């Protein structure tokens, strides 16, 4: 398979990324990977499941929070992480850093993925569990599909589970 350079690396020209988390810090990795793949001319699809649905839910996408509680990597003592206001504070610090580096916010990043031709799918089972309907999702979502459909679409792709 050749990449946009015209070089043959023997890699599939397709990636399938499963986004299962909904915190601000865990929403970025999957989306950035998908965007990088597209920038290299690699086909990409993203499957949003469980908490990952928050990334594509209209009422949630602008309000993702930085995950500090129970996060062994969080740069503050565990006892403080759960105090009132800490999550909001940590989220705003993280957002400032992101903006300062001119990285797009989550909504804009998903819109970018869509404009770049990424197929965005919502997990049917997770939608049922959370009582969501198609109309609750952002317009960029292509389709609501099940896990077997995921495997069909992801055939031949490198898969990433975030």
């Amino acid at each position, binding site marked *: 398979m050749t*990449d*946009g*350079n*015209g*070089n043959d690396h023997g890699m599939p020209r397709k990636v399938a990324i499963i986004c299962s988390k909904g915190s601000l810090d865990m929403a970025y990795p999957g989306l*950035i990977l998908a*965007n*990088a793949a*597209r*920038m*290299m*001319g*690699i086909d990409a699809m993203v499957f949003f499941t469980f908490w990952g649905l928050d990334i594509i839910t209209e009422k949630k996408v602008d309000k993702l929070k930085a995950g500090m509680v129970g996060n062994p990597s969080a740069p503050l003592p565990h006892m403080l992480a759960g105090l009132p206001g800490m999550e909001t504070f940590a989220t705003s610090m993280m957002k400032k850093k992101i903006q300062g580096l*001119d*990285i*797009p916010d989550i909504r804009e*990043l998903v819109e*970018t993925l869509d*404009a*770049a*031709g990424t197929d965005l799918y919502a997990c049917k089972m997770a939608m049922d569990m959370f009582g969501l309907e198609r109309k609750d999702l952002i317009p960029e979502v292509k389709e609501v599909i099940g896990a077997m459909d995921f495997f069909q679409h992801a055939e031949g792709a490198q898969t990433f589970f975030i």
Partner: protein
Amino acid sequence: MAEKTYGGSTVSVDADGFMTDSGQWNKEVAEGMAAEVEITLTDRHWVVLDFVRQDAVDQGEPPGVRRITKLTDVSMKEIYQLFPKGPGILASKLAGYGKPQGCV
């Protein structure tokens, strides 16, 4: 390190075909590289390439896709139509620079 010839111009390239000296670039080289990835350069491609070359001089490094779409009138959708095999690398490559460093 190797050399490639596009028309009447010979340029130094790295293992991935990116130019190692942007000073050797000219339009003929761009057209030759574009042909390799099945692109025929139009005015809209040149909006991107001209911006990349100017911005690379101003900023010291070639711009990523997001910066190109923010500072020109080429939209995200259009840049993928212009460079379907990967605008992230092709915009820089065809402008005679290496890969941009960023992830957006």
